[in-house]
């Protein structure tokens, strides 16, 4: 039994809670898989430059996010990459699966056949990627989570307080971290991250430049 009223439908436009701030920062929005996505800001070269030299942050709230409950057998503390999705365990009985928006429906269907409880949290969580050599320094301005290599290796998954609110951080790649937090706090968290990143010479980047930078 699924809760379809939790899943954004392709019949209506879906928006990130950070859309207004992204627009104010000069974002170009594009509709992708039913979502308004901030794909670019001041252009790919400067945006890639940010990710290479300081820190770029990108709104990725459109990612599919599905919570499963029941024994999952995933090792705690790290995310597992499987079937083009990140499987992120919170407890031995609860995990969050992150996928591309277009894959959400298939994923939901597959999980529902396997786990006793499956709830779509796509709309419940906002997501920001912070990427670049100073990304860790940006995080140090608003979270006490230890992101050093020794504590959080690549693929490490760390639930904990970010900007004084509940959240989680996934180290997707060498210098690229995905942060999840409550959707209603999107506008607040944008302010927090932008303030920290800009004071270190960083700034917003579109998902296109991010994809190139992390490729």
């Amino acid at each position, binding site marked *: *039994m699924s*809760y379809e009223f939790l899943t954004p439908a392709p019949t209506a436009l879906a*928006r990130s809670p950070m859309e207004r701030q992204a627009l104010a920062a000069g974002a170009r929005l594009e509709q992708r898989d039913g979502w308004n996505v901030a794909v670019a800001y001041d252009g790919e070269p400067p945006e890639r430059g940010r990710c290479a030299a300081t820190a770029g942050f990108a709104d990725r709230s459109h990612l599919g996010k599905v919570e499963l409950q029941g024994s999952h057998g995933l090792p705690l503390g790290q995310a597992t990459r499987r079937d083009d999705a990140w499987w992120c365990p919170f407890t031995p009985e609860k995990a969050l699966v992150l996928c591309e928006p277009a894959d959400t429906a298939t994923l939901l269907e597959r999980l529902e056949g396997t786990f006793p409880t499956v709830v779509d*949290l796509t709309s419940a969580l906002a997501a920001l990627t912070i990427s670049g050599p100073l990304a860790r320094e940006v995080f140090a301005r608003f979270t006490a989570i230890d992101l050093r290599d020794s504590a959080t290796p690549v693929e490490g998954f760390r639930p904990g307080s970010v900007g004084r609110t509940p959240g989680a951080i996934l180290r997707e790649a060498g210098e690229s971290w995905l942060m999840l937090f*409550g959707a209603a*706090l999107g506008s*607040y968290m944008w302010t927090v991250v932008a303030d920290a990143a800009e004071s270190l010479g960083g700034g917003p980047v579109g998902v296109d430049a991010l994809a190139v930078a992390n490729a």
Partner: protein
Amino acid sequence: MTRLPPQDGERVDREREVTFTFDGREVTGLEGDTIGSALFASGRRTFSRSFKYHRRRGLMCCAGQCPNCLVQVDGAPGVRACTEPVQEGMEVEHMNARPSLEFDAMRATDLFGGPFTPPGFYYKTFIRPRRLWPLYEKILRHAAGLGKVPKEQAEREWRTEYRRRHADILVVGGGAAGLSAAIAAAELGADVVLADEGPEPGGRLLAEGNHARARELTARARDLGVELLTSAPALGAFDGLVPVWERDTLHQVRAQRIVYATGAIEQPLLFPGNDLPGVMLSGGAVRLATLYGISPGSRAVVATVDDRGLEAAVALLARGVEVATVADLREHGNSDAMKQLMRQGVHVLRGATVLQAEGRSSLQRVTLGPPGAGEGGAGEHELTCDLLAVSGGSAPATSLLAQSGARTRYDERLGHFVLSEMPEGAHAAGEVAGSGSLFEAERSGAVAGAGAAHELGFGDDESRARVETERKTVLNSRDGMPEVAVPPAVTSSRRGKCFACLCEDVTAKDIHLSVEEGYDSIELSKRYTTTTMGPCQGRMCQLPAVRLMAEETGTSLADVGTTTARPPWHAVPMGALAGRPFEPAKRSSMHARHRELGANVLWAGDWRRAYDYGDPRAEALAVHETAGLIDVSTLGKLIVRGPDAGELLDRLYPNRFSNLAPGRIRYGVMASDAGRIMDDGTICRLDDDSFYVTTTSSGAGAVYQWFSWWLADWRLNVHLTDVTQGLSAVNLAGPRAREILASLTDLDCSAEGFAYLDGKRADVAGVPCLLLRIGFVGEVGYELHFPSAHGEHLWDALMEAGGPLGLRPFGLEPQRLLRLQKMHILVGQDTDSESTPFGAAMPWIVKLDKEQPFIGKWALEKAASGELETTLVGFRLADGHVPTEGAVVLPDGDGPVGQVTSARFSPQLGGVIGMAWVPVSLAKDGASVTISDEGRRLQAEVVTKPFYDPDGEVLRS
């Protein structure tokens, strides 16, 4: 001029001048100067006026330890001139002197002020008459204190922020020991942070002319990847978290091991006139000469109890300062420094110390002689000089260690407190651990750093063995420590003020008086006289105060003990502690739309909410007349799923949910085990195994935690998911709501097809929704819950469809009026922490016959069989005045028996309505109660059924 010829390793750049102002007058210093060194070089000797007596105070420690050079820089008070680097154009002002530093009218308190100034004189003198206290306070604040904060602060221009730094090892202090510790730990592979107070690491190495070694060690540490924080004092030790303040950043360092290499603090001696400008600590005089190339005086006298003072005398001589006489309290001893002094023919008095210092605006004359001598005793020498360099021994800087749990004991031979017990995870190195020489400090640092790294698993057996051998060498070398003479609490019995505490102007006599008055423990004396509580935090006064206390009470220093310096250990601006503002504000997905519609947005719990759209009364009327739309996304929302879901709810709520049919809704009030109301909301059964639970907006987080807590204890087969932020919600209500909804969905919206308390699932304007037909505001209403990503889409679709039919958005305020008309309670507004469902007039919600021992059952059983005192009722007022929420209810004109919890003017009903707690005897329709509201008496009529649509006919239609 006071500048010496260029000194080897000096910090100043003689080619580059820096100009700033002091009290409006231009001063020129050199690049690399501190404010203190530049002012001293320009001829200034008085830097501040003291706290109470307004005595002149000059440079003393030149290391940021004493309070003597506190100044105001660009409006910020409490800056230490002796460590603050000069910057072009900075505006420096003196503190605590009026009209000027050179002529201070309050100096009278020193000259004539006998009865004004004993300890506790504020408490004793200014208590009567009490009504004059505000006036006294104003005068006292003017007379005492340290600097003033500008009344009007321009918008903050400097940003401050927190930076979290995790590390394997934190080294506090960047002297020879600290640098060596950092190097040793980093060599073994540890991630190391080093924090040092000074502008460059090196500590005593720099002050004693060994700058080449300092720079060598610094470079080595940097090459090994040690993060070096300079001008960065550690402020305290909080359960392993050490805040390190570096200009606009507060580093919150969380390290697995901490090496304290905090050094030692040179101590003053107590004698009449010990605070005169020109009396300096020997280290301070040497620092002026070595680091800034300044002659601290033209003719110096040195008084010491150990080799430190002798070494200072040698250093001063080498830099061309005349040293008239050296008084060494020790009778014997022939250290290298002593030999050098002899060789150079310096006059040395053994077994002698300083008995008195005299001078008008600065030091002119000192008297040397055997300790304890009074006026005109044998063996006294009077000397003219303008510099007295004093060394009263050194006290290990153990304050940060004490904050982290270390203990100290008194060492008779050294005359100060030494570390006796270390907390887990902490190491000490260098002078704080008792290593006297710089060579030893380096060795003990290396041992501590490597030891800390080994504890964390770095290194190998070989490195362990090597460090173990070194450790033994370090311990053995302590036995050959140089001799120290322990000075008496006060060196002479001559008359005149001997200052034990420079910060708060406490004299030896004040401590004597406080003991006489019965404040005979160091903790009591600290609080009564405020000794050790000033800006120096005990650096200069702790040991002298303990010595005085021991002498006064006839006990040993070990028995007197020490006080613990509280954080911050180093003065820090409040702004640096505040960091950047974090104010997590939740916003609905439709927030931007409310803003565009001109909503008044206010805080509601941790949400920003539309309070109204400019006309709350018209908004409420629209709900009755056409239709209204309110954003209720702030409601807490939980999905409770599993075979035992019904069982869980039956255990958590006083009423029953396991028998609720799928697709139906029931209201629930949650109680604690004391039977008190905690929260309320509606619960919809989605299917056999799942329920959708809504909570109050402010209770969302607490209810989720309450559910999951009991679940962890009971271990039922249920899964919970908090979807509060995943689902946005709007309530569409009013006579035309059905028509508006029907135009956007295929769902049968008829009264029969979608009845009151039905829960349906359908697409509305292409958005998948859970629709709940409930009636919080009293009209036919539909609560639509849907993915928050579609917030703006659905809001726009509803407004577009409803606009032509008179749909109007309404805010929180009109909603409060509408629910009051229905007597729907607001938990926390109409109830408090003592309210039970019985008192709140909802006995029907408690099912005591349920088989489950539900939360609150036992307490509610007892409440049901007992007598209620007060109960919640509605009231109507003939008078048009709306009583304040909280106004008291007086049934017969005597003491209060209840209170008003909600009251509004209702345009729909044409009068004032409200809810109040009243005695049970008055809880019947038509009863009369008196409400007393800020002196006004109002006559109210009790109403027990909803004011609007009492039988719910409108609601169900």
